[in-house]
C-alpha cells in the first residue's frame, strides 16, 4: 500500500472524504467536540433554571428564543434540554467522539497496520455519524421543539405528540438521527474488530496487545452486539408512532381521547432499550479505561500492574454488562424474582471494576511519575471511577434502589462514574496523542489549569447531588418549588450550578489550547513521551500508510518501562529481546 501513498490528493480527498484513518479520527474528534459544546451549553442553561426556578434570565432568551418568553424558560424546553444533553453526551460525545476518535487513530498505529481493514467503510462510518449529528442539531430548531421524553425516550411519552410537544417532529428527527448513528457505529465497530483480528504486525500476539487495543476491541464487540437491539426498539417505536401498531401502547386516553391501541407494553421498550443502554455505558467507559491504562503506565515509567488481570477484568465487565440491563427497571413492576437475578449480576460487576481500580493505584506505587496533563486526567479518572463506582453498589441493590431510583443520587452516580471518567479519559487521550494527530504539542500549563478547574468544578457539581438524592429529590424536575420538603435544598442547587458554570468555563481553556496548538504548538518529537507502543515509531509527518518503509516487527509486550538491564527507562515494542531476556 505504501507505494500508493504519494498520489496527488486534492483538498476534498485529503480533508473531507479522506479514507485515511488518522484524518477520520480527527473528523470524529472535532465533530464530537462540537456536539460536546452544544451539550455543555444546554447543561449550563438547565442548571441555571434549577438553581433559580422560574426567574427570568437574558441567557435563556438569547439561546432559546421563543421558548423563553420574557426570559422565563418553558417547562417543555427544560425537558428538551435535559433530553438532548443526555443524548449528545452519551452517544455523540462519549461513544462516537471517544471511541470513534481513538479507535480510528490508534488501532492501525498500535497494531502495526497501514490503515483500517476497509478505509471506505471507515469513511462511511464517519459520514453516517456526520449526517446523524446534523439531523440531531436540526431537530433543535423545529417549531414543536426537540425530543423531550428523556434520553431514554420511554413510550408512551415519546410515542404521543399529544403528551408532550417534543414528541412530534422533534422525536421523529431524533429517531432518524439515532438510526443513522447506529449504522455508523456498526460500520465502525465491525471494521475495528476485523482490523485488530487480522492486521496485527508480525510478533504482535493478543497477549502483547496494548490495553488500549484490548479495550477498543472489546468495546467494538459490545457495540456490534447491542446497537442492533436499539435499532429494533426504535423501529417498533416508529411503527407505533406512524403506522398505528401497538407494540408499546395499550389502554391510553390522552387529551380526552381514547386511543384504539390495545395489548402493547412500554416495558417491552424498556427491556429493548436497556439491552443496548447498559452495555452502552461500558462502551463509553472501557475505551477511557484503556486509554488511561496506557497513559498511567507510560507516565509512571512502570509496567501496568497485573496486565493479565486487566485484560481479564475487561472481558469480565464486558460479559457481565450484557446480563445486568434490568437493574434500570427494578420499580417497573417487573417480576421481583427477575429483580433479584439482576441485583446479583449487577453487584458482581463490582469485582472486576475493583480489580481495575486497585491495579491502577498499584501501578503508581514505586513509580517515577511524570505529571503531563494527560497523566493528571488519568489520575482524575481513577478517582472518579472509584467514587462513582462505589455508589453503584447502592443503586445495584434492588431493595435500596426503591428509594433512590430516579433521584439525584442516580444523576450524581452516573455522571461521576461514566460521564466524568469517560470525559477525563477522552481529555487524557487528546493531550497524550495530540502529537500523533497534529505533529505538535498542546500547551502544558493551560492543560494543568484545565485539569484543576475541571476536577474541582466537576466534583463540586456532582458530589453534592448524592445528598439531594438522599433527601428524596427526583431528577428531571423543572422546578423544586412545588414541594415544601425541598425548600431547604435550594442552597445546594445554587452551589451545584455555580460549580457547573466554573467547570464549563474551564472547557474554554481546552478549546483555546486545542485550536491554538494545532497551529502554534511546539513541534513534536517522534516519541515525546518516551513510550513503548508502535505509534511512536511512525514519523512525525503522519504519512499515508503510516510507516515509510517496512512495518516494524514486535518482539515484546508494550510495558517494558524501567526494565532492569536497559540504559533508558523504556524499551519499545520493536526492540528484540536480549539473549536470555524473558518477555513479561
Amino acid at each position: 500500500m505504501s507505494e500508493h501513498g504519494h498520489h496527488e490528493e486534492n483538498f476534498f480527498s485529503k480533508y473531507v472524504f479522506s479514507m485515511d484513518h488518522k484524518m477520520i479520527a480527527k473528523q470524529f474528534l472535532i465533530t464530537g467536540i462540537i456536539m460536546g459544546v452544544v451539550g455543555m451549553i444546554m447543561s449550563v442553561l438547565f442548571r441555571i433554571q434549577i438553581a433559580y426556578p422560574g426567574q427570568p434570565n437574558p441567557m435563556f432568551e438569547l439561546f432559546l428564543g421563543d421558548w423563553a418568553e420574557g426570559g422565563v424558560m418553558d417547562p417543555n424546553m427544560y425537558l428538551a434540554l435535559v433530553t438532548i444533553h443526555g443524548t449528545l453526551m452519551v452517544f455523540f460525545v462519549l461513544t462516537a467522539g471517544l471511541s470513534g476518535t481513538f479507535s480510528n487513530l490508534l488501532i492501525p498505529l498500535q497494531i502495526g497496520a497501514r490503515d483500517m481493514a476497509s478505509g471506505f467503510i471507515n469513511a462511511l462510518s464517519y459520514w453516517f455519524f456526520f449526517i446523524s449529528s446534523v439531523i440531531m442539531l436540526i431537530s433543535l430548531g423545529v417549531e414543536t421543539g426537540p425530543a423531550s421524553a428523556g434520553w431514554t425516550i420511554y413510550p408512551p411519552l415519546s410515542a404521543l405528540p399529544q403528551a408532550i410537544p417534543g414528541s412530534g417532529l422533534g422525536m421523529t428527527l431524533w429517531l432518524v438521527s439515532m438510526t443513522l448513528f447506529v449504522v455508523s457505529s456498526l460500520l465502525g465497530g465491525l471494521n475495528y474488530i476485523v482490523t485488530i483480528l487480522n492486521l496485527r504486525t508480525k510478533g504482535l500476539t493478543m497477549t502483547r496487545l496494548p490495553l488500549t487495543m484490548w479495550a477498543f476491541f472489546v468495546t467494538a464487540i459490545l457495540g456490534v452486539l447491542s446497537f442492533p437491539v436499539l435499532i429494533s426498539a426504535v423501529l417498533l417505536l416508529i411503527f407505533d408512532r406512524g403506522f398505528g401498531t401497538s407494540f408499546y401502547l395499550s389502554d391510553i386516553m390522552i387529551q380526552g381521547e381514547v386511543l384504539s391501541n390495545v395489548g402493547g407494553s412500554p416495558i417491552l421498550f424498556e427491556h429493548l432499550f436497556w439491552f443496548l443502554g447498559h452495555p452502552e455505558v461500558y462502551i463509553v467507559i472501557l475505551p477511557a479505561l484503556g486509554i488511561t491504562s496506557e497513559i498511567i503506565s507510560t507516565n509512571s515509567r512502570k509496567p501496568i500492574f497485573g496486565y493479565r488481570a486487566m485484560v481479564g477484568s475487561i472481558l469480565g465487565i464486558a460479559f457481565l454488562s450484557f446480563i445486568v440491563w434490568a437493574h434500570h427497571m427494578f420499580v417497573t413492576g417487573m417480576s421481583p424474582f427477575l429483580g433479584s437475578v439482576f441485583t446479583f449480576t449487577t453487584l458482581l460487576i463490582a469485582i472486576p471494576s475493583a480489580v481495575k481500580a486497585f491495579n491502577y493505584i498499584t501501578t503508581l506505587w514505586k513509580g517515577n511519575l511524570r505529571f503531563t496533563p494527560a497523566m493528571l486526567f488519568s489520575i482524575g479518572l481513577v478517582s472518579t471511577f472509584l467514587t462513582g463506582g462505589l455508589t453503584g453498589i447502592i443503586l445495584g441493590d434492588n431493595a435500596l434502589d426503591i428509594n433512590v431510583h430516579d433521584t439525584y443520587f442516580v444523576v450524581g452516580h452516573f455522571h461521576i462514574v461514566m460521564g466524568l471518567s469517560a470525559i477525563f479519559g477522552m481529555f487524557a487521550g487528546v493531550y497524550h496523542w495530540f502529537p500523533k494527530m497534529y505533529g505538535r504539542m498542546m500547551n502544558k500549563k493551560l492543560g494543568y489549569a484545565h485539569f484543576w478547574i475541571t476536577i474541582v468544578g466537576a466534583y463540586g457539581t456532582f458530589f453534592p447531588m448524592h445528598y439531594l438524592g438522599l433527601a428524596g429529590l427526583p431528577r428531571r424536575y423543572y422546578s423544586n418549588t412545588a414541594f415544601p420538603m425541598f425548600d431547604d435544598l435550594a442552597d445546594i442547587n445554587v452551589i451545584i450550578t455555580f460549580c457547573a458554570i466554573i467547570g464549563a468555563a474551564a472547557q474554554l481553556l481546552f478549546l483555546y489550547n486545542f485550536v491554538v496548538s494545532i497551529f502554534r504548538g511546539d513541534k513534536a518529537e517522534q516519541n515525546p513521551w518516551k513510550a513503548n507502543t508502535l505509534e511512536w515509531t511512525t514519523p512525525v509527518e503522519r504519512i499515508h500508510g503510516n510507516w515509510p518503509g517496512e512495518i516494524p516487527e514486535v518482539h515484546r509486550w508494550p510495558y517494558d518501562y524501567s526494565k532492569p538491564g536497559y540504559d533508558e527507562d523504556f524499551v519499545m515494542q520493536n526492540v528484540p529481546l536480549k539473549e536470555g531476556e524473558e518477555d513479561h
Partner: protein
Amino acid sequence: MTELLILVAVVVAVIAIAQVVRIFELSNKIKGVRESDVTDKDNDTQGKLLLTFGILFMLAFFVMTAKWNHLLLPISASEHGLEIDFLMDLSMGLIILVFLITQPILFYLSFKYRGHKNRTATFISHNDKAEIIWTIVPAIVLTVLIIYGLKTWASVMDRTNLDNPVVVELYAKQFDWTARYAGEDGQLGAANVRFVGGLNSVGVIAESALLTQNAGLQVNIEKTIAKIEAEENAMKRAKMEERLHKMLAKQKTFTSIVTRTAQDRLDAAEDDVVVKELHLPVNRQAHLKFRSQDVIHSAYFPHFRAQMNCVPGMNTDFVFKPILTTEEMREETGNENFEYVLLCNKICGAAHFNMQMTVIVESEEDYEKWLASQATVLASNNN
C-alpha cells in the same frame, strides 16, 4: 443578570489565564526551553497539588456530610422502610470506608512518587498474591451485601403476608393523582380507560356509573340529532354526524364492556370511593395498586421508602405499613407543617415537577370516619 455577569467574568478570567500562559511560553522560547516538556519542578508542583486536592476533597466530604446530614430524609415512616434503612446504612458505611481508604491512597501515592530525573521506577509487573486478595475480598463483601439485599428485597416484595390491608388504587394521569378505595368489601371493582369521562374520573365499570354516563350521552345524542336537522351547511352537518357516530359507538362500547364484566366485579365497584387525597390508617398494611391513563408515571413516597411505576395497560402494586401518623412525624421532624407526599418520579410531561398528592396517615378511627364521609360510586351516581 447576576449569572450573566458571572459568566462574563469567567470568560474574561479564562482569557486572562490564557494570556499569562502565552507570556510564560514566550519567555521559555527566549530561554530555549520547550514549554511542553515536563520538568522536575512541574512534577513537584503537580504532585503537591494532587496531595492538597486529596486532603481538601476528604475535608469537603466531611464538611458536606456534617452540614447537610439534617436535610436527608427523616426516619422511615413505614415498617419495611426500617429494613431498607438498615441495609442502606450498612452499605453506605461500607462504601464510605472504601472511599476514605482508596482516595487518600491514590492522591498520596501520586504525591509520594512524583517524578525526578535522579529516580527510577521499580519494575513490578504483577503480584499474583496481592491480586488474588483484592479479587477475593470484594467478592466476599459483595456476597454478604447481595445475600442481605436479596433477603430485604424478598421481604419487601412479599405478597403472601397480607393481613387485612387497606386496598387503594392510585390512578395516575398528566398531571395529577386520583385514589380509589376498595370500600367495605375490600375489592376494587373493574375499571377501563374507555369509561373515563364526566364524574367517572378513573373509569370505574359499575352499573350505576353506566346509567349516569349513558343518560348524559343520550342527552348529547338527542341534542346533536336536533342540531343536525336544523343545520343547513352540508360540511358542518357532516362533522356533526361524525360526532354523533362516535357517541353512538361509545354507547355501544359501554354496554358491551358492562355485559362482558362479571356481575360480582360490577357489584364490587359500587362501594368504591374515588377521592383526591390519600388517607391511610397507621399500623395497617396499605396495598396500593397502580394504573396510568396516559404515559408512564412513578408513584414515589420518599418517607415510606416506597416507589412503583404506573404503566398504561398494566397493573402494578406495592405494599407498605405506615408506622408513624402525620402528627407523630411532625413531632419527629420538629416541623409543624410536615406532610407526607406522593410525587411523580418518572418524566411525564410539562408539569411533571408538580404532580403531587398529599398523604395523610392517621389513627384507624379517624381514617374510618373520614372514609365514611366520602361518597361511594353508587352514592355519587344516585345524586
